[in-house]
Every structure is written in C-alpha cells, then in structure tokens.
C-alpha cells in the first residue's frame, strides 16, 4: 500500500519534527472541529436515547422496553473512534477503500450479487402465496452472505500482505502510528462494505418495490404485463402504498422499504464485528486459518440466542443445561459476538416495524464488541516485529 500525503501539506514540518517520538502529526484545527461536531451529534443521540429513544414505538412491545447505562458504552466508543480518526488514519482509510474496490474479485462479487438481487423476483414461485416473505428472506439473506464474504476475505487480507510485501515498513517509517494504521484499515474496510451494502441493498429494495407495485398496484389497476403498466406507475404506486392489510404488502410498499432499509442498516453491526474480528485474527493466524475461524465464529455468533437459552440467560430463565456443560455454554455465550442481534428478518416477515430503540441498543452493543476486537488487534499489532 502506498499512503498518499496527509491532506494538509503545511504539516510537513510537523511530520519531520515528530518522527522521533512516533506520535504522528498534529491535528489541524478544522479537522478537530469537525470531529467535535460529529462527537456532539453522537452525544446528542445518546442523550435522546437515554431520555426517550429507548422506548418502543407506539403499539409495539412496550413491556420489554429497557434502558441500561451499558447501552451508552457504545455511544462513548463511537465518539472515541471519531476522536482517534486523525487525518492520517483517514488517509489510510481512503487508500484502503480505493485498493479494495479495485480488487477484481470484489467487483465480481458485487456484480454477481447485483444480478442475483435484480432477478430475485423471478424466484418467488418457490413460495406461492408468500411471495413477499420469500423476497424479503431471499434479498436480505443474499445480501448478508455476500457482504459477509467480503468482510471476512478483505479483513483477513488487509494487514498481512503489507507485512509480507514489506510496505508496512515504509508506512510506519512515516508519521503514522500503529493505532492510526489499524483504525484506518478498519475504517477503509467499513467504507468498502458500506458501499457494497448500499449497492446491493439499493438494488434489492428497488426490485422489491417494483414487485409490490406490480402486484398490489398495477395488477389491480390494469392487469397486463409490466411494460403495459408503466404509464400507470404513479397510480399503481399509490395503490401499492396503501396500508390496507391486503395484497403482498400489508403495510404498503413505502413502509416495507423503510423497514428493509433499517434491517440492512442493522446488518452493518454484523459486518463491523466480523471486519474487526478478521483483522484481529489476521494478527495471530495465517490467512486461510483466519478465514475458517472467522466463519466458525460467524456460525456460532448467529446461534448466540441458542447458547443463551441453553445456559438460561434468556427466555423462561430455566437453564436447559446443568453442571460443567452449562459453564461451557455460559463461557461461549460470554465470549461470542451475538451476531443474531443484528438479524431482524423474523421481524420483517411479520410486517412489524424495526424500532429505532432496538437499532440503537443493538448498534451500541455492536460498536462495543468491535472495539474489543480492535483493542485486541492493537495489542498484538503494537508488539509485532517486522
């Protein structure tokens, strides 16, 4: 990797003066101001959440509403991450992003996903009578697996090649701290994954919306094929957007798309954890081993609710397991990333809205676990000799 110069060339003197103590460059005031603005916004979100935002939307399962001070840890870490994102880390991030999207397999993966999501409506015959459920399952599932593959394979291959190609020596000989390098790599990966998710999610939501408009709007309005219905698209959309409890979309296409968008956004939690996990593993294991372990952890993490139930940590409170086996289950549950927290597909197929309270609570947990992984990665990376 070749790191371009930091955005502010007037810092060159600072770079040379700070090389000796390896403290990186001074942060320009404008950058710092931007950081504080962002941190302020996160703080406001945290305050809002702590006062009112933790409550479920009206008509939802209000009895389960709860607020814990530990929910705020994630907000605090997010602010810390913003603070640690120095111009240098940002340069590493953007360079990592550009490198990642130039990889052919990433482009191929994205292209394949876009095609499969684009034609997803053709597979709805597999569940006659539940086409909308099938589409939501299929679209979200496909997006999840594709972005997950990208997260693990890219995450494992972010730092090791730099070491193998010795480019890390060049980078770290510049005023780039190891923490900045690590955070930059992580942020670059997250930018790549966010782009992938946005493209796939966008195509999926568009396919879904067109399917619903065709079924609930155009079919009822004029019948015929899609192209014949095109002139009637506005009326068809208006029909499909009615929350009348009828048709393939009970709450209207607009509500569905918003809900799908929220579910996809929540998936960023899984991607963040898995990206950090892959980066962390790459500090200890070889590439292929790290990939295998990452997927094993993903499967275990997806099953976190089962571990919790087995150990009596959720549900009726009566532990299914006892003795040493329960201790093992407890331990696995305590160490695992609870990835199923970010999976709300069952919510979607029931036509129930994904609440902001849930998104923030789950998001906070995701940020916290990501920080754990990055801290461990930093611990290993900072000790590494090249």
């Amino acid at each position, binding site marked *: 990797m070749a790191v371009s110069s930091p955005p502010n060339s007037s810092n060159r003197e600072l770079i040379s003066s700070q090389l000796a103590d390896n403290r990186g460059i001074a942060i320009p005031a404008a950058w710092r101001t931007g950081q504080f603005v962002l941190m302020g916004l996160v703080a406001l979100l945290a305050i809002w959440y702590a006062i009112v935002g933790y409550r479920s939307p009206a008509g939802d399962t209000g009895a389960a509403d709860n607020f814990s001070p530990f*929910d705020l840890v994630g907000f605090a870490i997010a602010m810390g991450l913003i603070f640690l994102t120095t111009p240098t880390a940002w340069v590493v991030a953007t360079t990592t992003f550009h490198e990642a999207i130039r990889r052919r397999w990433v482009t191929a993966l994205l292209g394949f996903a876009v095609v499969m999501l684009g034609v997803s409506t053709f597979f709805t015959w597999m569940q006659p009578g*539940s086409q909308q459920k099938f589409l939501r399952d299929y679209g979200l599932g496909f997006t999840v697996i594709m972005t997950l593959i990208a997260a693990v394979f890219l995450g494992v291959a972010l730092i090791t090649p730099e070491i193998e190609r010795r480019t890390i020596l060049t980078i770290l000989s510049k005023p780039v701290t190891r923490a900045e390098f690590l955070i930059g790599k992580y942020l670059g990966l997250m930018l790549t994954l966010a782009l992938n998710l946005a493209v796939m999610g966008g195509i999926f939501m568009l396919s879904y919306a067109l399917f619903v408009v065709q079924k609930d709007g155009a079919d009822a309005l004029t019948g015929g094929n899609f192209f014949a219905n095109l002139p009637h698209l506005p009326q068809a959309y208006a029909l499909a957007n009615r929350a009348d409890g009828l048709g393939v979309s009970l709450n209207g296409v607009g509500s569905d798309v918003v809900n799908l968008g929220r579910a996809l956004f929540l998936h960023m939690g899984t991607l963040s954890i898995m990206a950090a996990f892959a980066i962390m593993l790459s500090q200890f294991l070889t590439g292929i081993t790290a990939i295998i372990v990452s997927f094993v952890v993903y499967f275990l993490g997806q099953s976190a609710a089962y571990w919790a139930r087995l150990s009596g940590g959720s549900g009726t409170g009566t532990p299914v397991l006892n003795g040493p086996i329960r201790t093992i289950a407890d331990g696995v549950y305590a160490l695992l990333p609870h990835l199923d927290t970010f999976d709300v597909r069952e919510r979607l197929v029931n036509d129930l809205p994904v609440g902001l309270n849930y998104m923030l609570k789950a998001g906070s947990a995701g940020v916290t676990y990501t920080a754990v992984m990055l801290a*461990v990665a930093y611990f290993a990376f900072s000790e590494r000799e090249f």
Partner: protein
Amino acid sequence: MELSKWGALAGAGLLLVSYNLAQPGINRLRDTDAIHPKTEAKREAYGPSLVWLDRLARASDEGGTVYDPRTNKLEGSGKVKLDFSVMSSLMVAGLASGFKSQVANLLWMKSDEYWHEGLFTRQVPLMEAVVTLDPQFIDAWSTAGWHWAYNIYADIATNPDNIKGGPAVIRKKQEAAVATGLDYLDRGSNINPDTYRLWFEYGWTRAEKAGYYDLKTVELYKTARSKSDARTIEVQGPGGQMVKEKGLDILGRTIGHLWERVPDFDKAQDQYANDLIGATPAQRQILNVAGAAWHRYGAGYTDIVDVYRGGDAVTKADVKALVPNIEEIAAAQDLRQKIAGQTGKDQPVGAYITIEARYMPAWRMMKADDLDGAINEMIGVMNVNEKFHLEGLPVLKKIYELRGDSPATIETALTRTRADEKTSSQDLGLHFLAKLYEMKEEKATDPTEKKALAMQAYRTWYRSRARDALDFYALRKTRVYEDKYGFTTPDDIVAEIKKSRKGGVPDAAPKTAPNVSGYYGA
C-alpha cells in the same frame, strides 16, 4: 511491553464485560417473555423462536402419546416431540448460519416431492424441520396440521398392521394423529398470531375433524375473525390475474354455524341477528314472523306474499281469509329482502329464519323444561309430521289454486317442500334431539333410566354419524358413550339409514319418540 498496550488488553476485557452486561436488555427486547412469561409458543419480538430448542432439550421429559408413522407406534407426548432424528445436517446448517428460511424452502420442496410420490410418512420429519427452521412459514404449519389430521389419519385405517390390530388400535392412532395435527396448528397460530389463517384452521380442524364444538373452538374462530386479514379474498383482476380484496365475514357465519351444530340456537340466532345483521329487537320480532310463516307453510310462504301482492282486490281478500296475518308476513318478507339485499354483505337472514322455523319451537319448550314436548316436536319436524310442522300446507295448496296452478304442479311443489324440510332439518335436528336426551339423562336419578336415556342419546348421535360420515362431533359423542357404557354399534340404525340412501337422500330421523322404558336394561 509498554503499559499502554496492557491497558489496551485490559480495556478490551472491560469492554467485553460491558458488552455482556448490556445483553439482558437486548434479549428482553428480542423475546416477548415480559409479555407472555408462561406461554410456550409465541412470536418473539425481534429474535427467532427458541421453542424448538426447549423441546429438543426436553424431548425425553415429555409424556403423552404421539403416533410415529415410521415405526407405526404410539409414543411421546400429547405434543409433537422434536428429536435428534429430525436434526439433519442441512437443518443444523440452516439454524447455525442464519439462513434458516432458505434451507426451509429447500426442505419444503423435498417434502412436496414426497407428497407427489405418495410417500406421506417421509414428509413427517421434513415438515417438523421446516416449521422449526422457518416458524413464519404459514403454509408449512397449515400443511403439517392438515397432513396429520387428514392424510395420516386416513392412512392409518388402511395400514394392514392396524387393520390386524382392530378398531380400537385404529381409533387410538387416529385420535393421536388428529391431536398431532392440532398441535401443529396450535403452535403455528401462537407463533404467528397476527394472521387469521392458522387460528381459523386450528378452530376448523378442532371442530370438523376432532369434533369439538365448544367454547375453545369459538374463541379460536373469534381470534381469527379479529385479525386484519380475516376477510381477505382473492378475486380475478381486470387482466385475468388474481388480486386480493376484502370479502365477506365468513368467520362470523362460521361461528353461527358452530352454535347451530352444538346446538345452542339462542347463541346462533344472536350471532346472526345481532353480530352480523345488526338487527334491532323490533326487527328480530318481524323476522320471527317470517320464521313462524316458514314453520307453517315452508319456504313457499314467499309465494303467498307474491300472490297477495300481485293479486287483485278479490284475490287479496281470498288470501287474507286464508292467511289472516298476511300483512305481517308480507312486512317480514320485505324486511328479509331488504337485509339480504345489502350490497356486499350477504347477510345470513335465511339462516336466522330457518332456525326460527324449524328448531325454535322445540327450543322454547326445552327452555320451559318441557323436554318430552321438545322431543316430540323435533321428531315431528324431522319427519314433516303436519301435526308439528308445515301444518299450513293445505292453505298453501289453496293459494296455489288461487294462483291458477295445475293440480300436478301444486302436488309437485308441495312434495318438494316436504322433502326439502325433511332433508334440511335432520342435520341440526338430530344434534338437538340427542342433546334433549342428554338433558333428560342428566336429570334422571334412577340409574336404569339414566342408562336407557344415555342409550337414546347414543343412538341419536349414531343416527347423525351414520347419516353424515363427516360429522365428527357425532362420532366423538358416540365414542364417549361407547367408552362410558360399553354401547356397541346399533346395527338396526346403520341398516335403516343405509337402506334409506337407496332413495337418494338419507333419512336418519327416528319415526316416533321411543318408549324409553323399553330400553331399560339395555
């Protein structure tokens, strides 16, 4: 190593602890235990249903009986067990990967393949796997319930091993199969509480296959009716394709039908008149006049109104002489047509009037504690004995003569009226008659008389069972008596009804009220 790096590790540990401390709150949001602490099967708020895990873990603890078609044995609980044999590698992969629905779809297609190959029993573990993987797959719950309660139920009776075991073995296994089907529908409806379909199918299977016409079934229908999609129907759109629209209140009618078959005619009439039609007490009184006219003249009472309305002054006077309350009947008919003609409603006004005509006279006697009178009345109605029912047919004949009908036409019309009443009244009439005997049995204190009345109730239920092979309520009732008193199949009734079928429509009504004391010692 620098202290700051150990600090990073310590920080990671602290964050991990914080992470775990935040989890109970998330779990509370994901499940619905806070709302349904003791409900076993329920839709979780955000997370997946974990009931399967409890069942798997506690499989060995559950008692009861379940028919396993693979081993052809009864075992397990009153509920479906999830055992490890169901946990195929594909299923485990689906559960662990988070792609449960996709795996469920694959297994569902395999199950469908077995269905088309006639391999019923191979579908059983697949169906359990599908509903475990994808608890929101409504079709899978519905099909599993139907498969057990109908297909496997029917298959049991054709299995040579079961035939060898005799009727008792077949009955036990069939009852277990229906119970298993009901368990699927119970679990499925609780885990998908927002859609009407599984509540309705649970209620329907419970009533029409297990034979439970009771409050629980009514509650299930009411729950189904309260759902937003309860009246969604598919109709043909402008391009010939099927589109969904809001249809009639079929579930409201189903509740009324259930009360009719219990029977509880007060509740049935209330359901139709108050709940569905929204009739005022005054309107009900007017509709009762139509019912009384039907009781006297049969469905032909409407012809009397037509002749009266269409006739000249002389004809009107003649009709009025024959039917003094013709004005009241005409007003009742107007109201009936007005209610029935309400756009998009298809009101059950006919059902209300026929109940009033055929059963309410005996029902009122029953309420007045005149059980013998009610029994005679009901037998009279079912046999169209003009001492009890259609006593106005001679008047109707004169009305037809006034209209200028030929004697042959008149005879045909009157014969059809008698035949229609006979056929239509026996379905509910036999249930009612059996209920009357049950009430007498309850009141009797002498054990011999009690048993004789029980025999009458049993024989009446058997008439209904023999008349209609799909009357599972009567089937269950007869089995209750067989178990309690050791009654055996009344061959005379079976032969009598079989013989009557040769005439086209079965005639299952007893011809006269029996001399109960003749059954003493039965």
